[in-house]
């Protein structure tokens, strides 16, 4: 395990090194409401997090505690029908599935799973549970998942809460290696998710 963490850390360093200077990381101060994902969604953290300069997509944002390979909290702020969950990895040959305005609550984890399978190059991805939940006062869905990335033998666990409001998808997901990091970070992630406020709600 230790070896993988080292590799992961090295990979994170490489990724960080490739990030343009303009997209700098920023400290998230606890107990202050902030808008996330270039959207009107507001959340409040109970401890310090780091906002990464690199975004998964135009209306998305990533926070981390120890580096995004070890834990990451992704915000998706009001994605429109016809767009993808995050940036395409290979649009021509392996396009990501597109959002539909008429998606059912169960369609959200399904879209999430397909997007991850394609982007992460993995057939080892499972949705473990799907249950009703609210996000920022809107009725939605909470789901848990686990997956293995290619070239790793680390099992990652994730938990997400999502809602469709007015045909737009709002989603916050936390994921980390199942060993230690998921349990260490999930409480703060849940606090942030519970603090979410959506426009008009």
């Amino acid at each position: 395990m230790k070896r993988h963490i080292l590799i992961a850390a090295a990979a994170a360093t490489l990724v960080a090194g490739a990030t343009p200077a303009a997209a700098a990381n920023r400290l998230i101060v606890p107990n202050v409401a902030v808008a996330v994902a270039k959207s009107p969604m507001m959340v409040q953290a109970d401890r310090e997090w780091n906002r990464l300069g690199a975004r998964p997509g135009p209306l998305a944002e990533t926070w981390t505690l120890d580096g995004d390979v070890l834990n990451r909290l992704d915000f998706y702020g009001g994605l429109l029908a016809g767009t993808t969950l995050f940036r395409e990895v290979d649009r021509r040959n392996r396009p990501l599935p597109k959002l539909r305005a008429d998606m059912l609550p169960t369609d959200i984890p399904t879209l999430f799973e397909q997007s991850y399978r394609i982007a992460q190059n993995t057939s080892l991805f499972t949705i473990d549970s799907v249950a009703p939940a609210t996000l920022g006062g809107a009725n939605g869905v909470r789901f848990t998942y686990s997956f293995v990335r290619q070239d790793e033998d680390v099992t990652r666990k994730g938990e997400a809460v999502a809602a469709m409001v007015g045909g737009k998808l709002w989603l916050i997901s936390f994921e980390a290696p199942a060993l230690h990091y998921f349990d260490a970070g999930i409480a703060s992630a849940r606090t942030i998710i519970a603090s979410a406020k959506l426009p008009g709600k």
Partner: protein
Amino acid sequence: MKRLGLARLSAALLLAGAALPVAAQLPAAPAAAPPAQLPPIPAWGGTLEPQDRDERGLWMMSADDEQLIRGSRFVIDDPALNAYVRGVLCKAVGADRCQSVRLYVMRVPVFNASMHPNGMMQIWSGALLRMRGEAELAAVLGHEFAHYERRHSLAGFKQARAATDAALWAAFIPIAGLAVSLGALQGFFIYNQAQEKEADLGGLSFVQRAGYSTAAFADVWERLIAEEDAGRVARGQKPRAGRRSGFFATHPPSAERMTYLRALARQAADTGDPGAASLRAGLGAWFGRFLEDQVKLNDFGGTEWLLADLARRDGWTGQLLSTRGDLYRLRGQDGDMAIAAGLYREALAKGHADPETRRGLGLALLRQGQQAEGQAMLKAYLEAKPDAGDAAMLRMMAGLPSPATAGPTQ
């Protein structure tokens, strides 16, 4: 790193199309003339050992690769599936040769098989899903073994310092799916035409000796190209078959390959068993899992083609109908939900008992606003699978009260 496999593969294809570096340096092969008959199987000289400095280097790299593969979570360790695939290999190449092979079945939904020079053989789940029968599987494994026995990767290594056979298979569906980039030698080396032909013939000799149908293998290329083109067309791109540019302009004339394989099968007075039923039995429940992996690739056209091809073999079984329903439901374009619902109903009418079919039908109906019937289907699903991971959500969607124990997880 995660995209390296694909990038590497594309580069390999470009390279092959542009310059054919490996083939160009090796002696030109008279690949066009069909051979008169299948070659005799040579005497087995025992497990291969590296013989010179180059080969020792190749083995060391192979050992590193194998260590990675062995630890990979993508290896399917189900003893029954491993015993089945190994059994087919051993039946094809014979017990003595089989002893020198360490076989890894990988859960990667891409058509690929390969063998490292140290005796590590891989077959990916995408290949198992696409096999028409056991005879074809035997031919693919026998083909890889023939490369190994003839030390083809060493010849390539000496030329190119890179080797595996992935490009041979993957070239035909290079980017329709996923690729695993495990190990330095997963480098998508392309064997030259003479070597491919030798391996084709060697593989078929094994297949014939084992009593399998020798015809089974002949159209595998055609099917892979057709599937890839179906995927491309569905994505609004031009089909690749028939275009004589890039990779296909200079590299393996697959039509010619089909021709000589078919001619050989005829000459071998093929009476063998294609082994469709035994393959289905051997894959067992994995067949359904591989189908599910395929559907989730978001390759609508390719998957639609593949399902129809599987139906040509098995007929439209309840399982294939239900999987096709999933394919339409996951795409979810206008009109897809009605098609999906129709397919699920057909599956149910055929007695397909998998509760997932009712779940799929229920969700497809709800997406069309057919509330009462959709909810009834979800209730039927929940009766069959009360402990399903999504039971809490589906209970709410089915209009059932939430039991105290099934609230939102925290």
